[in-house]
């Protein structure tokens, strides 16, 4: 059972995509999994034969609990049966009530605004993940834990988002960049790798532009500011939606696979939009992102000012319906990864590929 997000303790298999005896390749779908926060599909990490299915559909399994056994033919049935018994004991024991929820949520006071952030990982370089418009640190649910094995990975809630202060001031990228710098200061991080999604990409560039020595590398995922074209209808629709009925089709535009827009996802977005101050924040930020129906903001200029100083990678979902993937070529000098089968949120639809792109960027920095 994978760990998606820092607070996940339990997951539930809603459907198996494989059966005992099936041969799988790396990347094949193994099972659909539902957690408190999200549903997703677990992919096989390696090739092999599925020898035993351990977890039943619909039962709660603790994170790290064994859900299936993939082994070569040489491994005998006795060994497999013994392993199944052990694995079942773990599942049946459940999660103890006092089990910690994962990394603690921390806050920093940045210019009078409370900024929330959470991190995982003990060693290695500092990575700070910056979400996009209307998102929060949970946008990185599928990435943060796996990357924590090698790095210190943090994600913040930008002003107006998540559990941070719902005051964006004049809503310019500078205000948002201040929050990012403030978190780096709170972490005591002299240098950090920034990963920015969509508007968060524009923010990451703004941070790097004002303080290039602070940033070790930039991974930009579908960043704003590299072209005029943008789905302004989506942005306005997201800001204006008052009910589930209005929000669901809007949220659907984010993904290549619209079935990812579960009731839980829409409910969570609605609950966020109903917090005091969010409506005003989202509408103020529209003024920063849009000039009529076109993009405002010139990320290309900020990038050019950096020159060759730091490695830059741009990642884009080919099926992006918010900002066209064609704009990736405008990220001059960046290594490009365009990912099939992903829309505007490749970090949710194709997390393994996004993780690989980030790690490759970090490697280039050393």
């Amino acid at each position, binding site marked *: 059972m994978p760990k998606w997000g820092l607070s996940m303790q339990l997951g539930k298999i809603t459907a198996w995509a494989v059966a005992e005896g099936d041969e799988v390749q790396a990347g094949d779908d193994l099972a659909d999994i539902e957690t408190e926060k999200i549903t997703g599909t677990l992919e096989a990490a390696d090739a092999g034969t599925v020898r035993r299915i351990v977890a039943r559909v619909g039962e709660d399994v603790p994170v790290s609990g064994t859900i299936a056994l993939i082994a070569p033919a040489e491994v005998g049935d006795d060994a497999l049966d013994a392993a199944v018994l052990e694995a079942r004991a773990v599942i049946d024991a459940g999660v103890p009530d006092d089990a910690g929820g994962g990394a603690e*949520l921390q806050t920093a006071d940045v210019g009078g605004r409370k900024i*929330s952030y959470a991190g995982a990982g003990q060693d290695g370089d500092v990575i700070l993940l910056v979400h996009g418009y209307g998102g929060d640190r949970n946008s990185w649910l599928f990435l943060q834990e796996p990357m924590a094995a090698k790095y210190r990975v943090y994600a913040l809630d930008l002003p107006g988002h998540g*559990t941070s202060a*719902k005051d964006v001031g004049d809503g310019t990228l500078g205000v948002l960049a201040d929050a990012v710098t403030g978190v780096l200061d709170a972490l005591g991080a002299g240098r950090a790798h920034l990963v920015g999604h969509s508007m968060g990409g524009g923010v990451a560039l703004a941070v790097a532009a004002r303080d290039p020595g602070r940033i070790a590398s930039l991974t930009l995922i579908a960043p704003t500011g590299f072209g005029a074209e943008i789905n302004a209808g989506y942005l306005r629709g997201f800001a204006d939606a*008052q*009910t*589930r*009925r209005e929000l669901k089709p809007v949220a659907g535009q984010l993904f290549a696979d619209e079935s990812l827009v579960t*009731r839980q996802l829409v409910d969570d977005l609605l*609950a966020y939009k*109903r*917090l*005091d101050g969010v409506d005003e924040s989202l509408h103020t930020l529209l003024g920063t992102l849009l000039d009529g129906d076109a993009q405002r903001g010139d990320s290309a200029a900020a990038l050019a000012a950096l020159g060759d100083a730091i490695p830059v990678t741009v990642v884009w979902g080919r099926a992006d319906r918010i900002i066209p993937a064609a704009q990736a070529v405008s990220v001059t000098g960046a290594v490009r990864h365009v990912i099939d089968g992903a829309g505007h949120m490749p970090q949710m639809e194709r997390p393994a590929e996004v993780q690989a792109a980030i790690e490759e960027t970090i490697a280039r920095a050393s």
Partner: protein
Amino acid sequence: MARNITYREALNEALAQEMERDETVIVMGEDNAGGAGAPGDDDAWGGVLGVTKGLYHKFPGRVLDTPISESAFIGAAIGAATAGMRPVAELMFVDFMGVCFDQIYNQAAKFRYMFGGKAITPVVIRTMYGAGLRAAAQHSQCLYPLFTHIPGLKVVLPATPYDAKGMMIQAIRDNDPVMFFEHKALYDTSGPVPEESYVVPFGEANVVREGGDVTIVTLGRMVHTSLDAAGQLAADGVQCEVIDLRTTSPLDEDTVLESVEGTGRLVVVDEAHPRCNIATDISALVARKAFGSLRAPIEMVTAPHTPVPFSNALEDIYIPDAQRVVNAVKTVTGWSR
């Protein structure tokens, strides 16, 4: 950040945050301050079940203990609202509504209409309802159907701590009189509630469980009873869609109708007495507007048409339980012409 707090604490937090934000918000009712000036812990109980605890000292002069005269203090709250304040008055047990009902349904509910929009009455009347605490016939009724019947009143029944806080904040900010129903058995229940202020709009039902075989429409404490039943039925392969109405006035018709159009079967679970209750109201709505989708007659699960018994054993039979909901679902799923 959302953390687990009780329904009672969620209400207290909503009141405190709104009183902080808006100085015209005041709290009044029998023992809402509770023994102010008495020694030690007895000073300011904060209501008979502690919902308003701590507010008296935090907001001096804005939390009032009232005499035991509902017609007087509910009337005063309504008058204060019309004069520019935002009172949150407590009608301790909804069973007491009889002595102040004129103030509520003939005055508060009609001011805006009869004064041609020149008056608003932004009063919230909080009230306890429901059986299960051995409080007997005159302290255990539901009665929300009576208020739902009156144009000009909003009637809301949060079932969870998250809804309690958001709906209380919405109620205080709303310019219309709001009857805010709190089931006695829910005060100690817990759930995730954000620290920040937020609203839950009225007229929006909540689909708390999705399922394709039958629609269960319910409200208040019965939401939890219905979810228990749905869990049992899932083990038998019957998937229930459970809809928490949250507000009876305004009513979210669309969510109910859309669900029944999908499942074709309806069970309404309502703790109120069976004549002219919300179950009959929803049944009529669906029979009129989704007749073609129905594959079985509608079933209602309600209390019986009797006063609430005092005897433990009889009160337990009186209150609709999960087994009765399971039976009703099996009736509609097993029905054939």
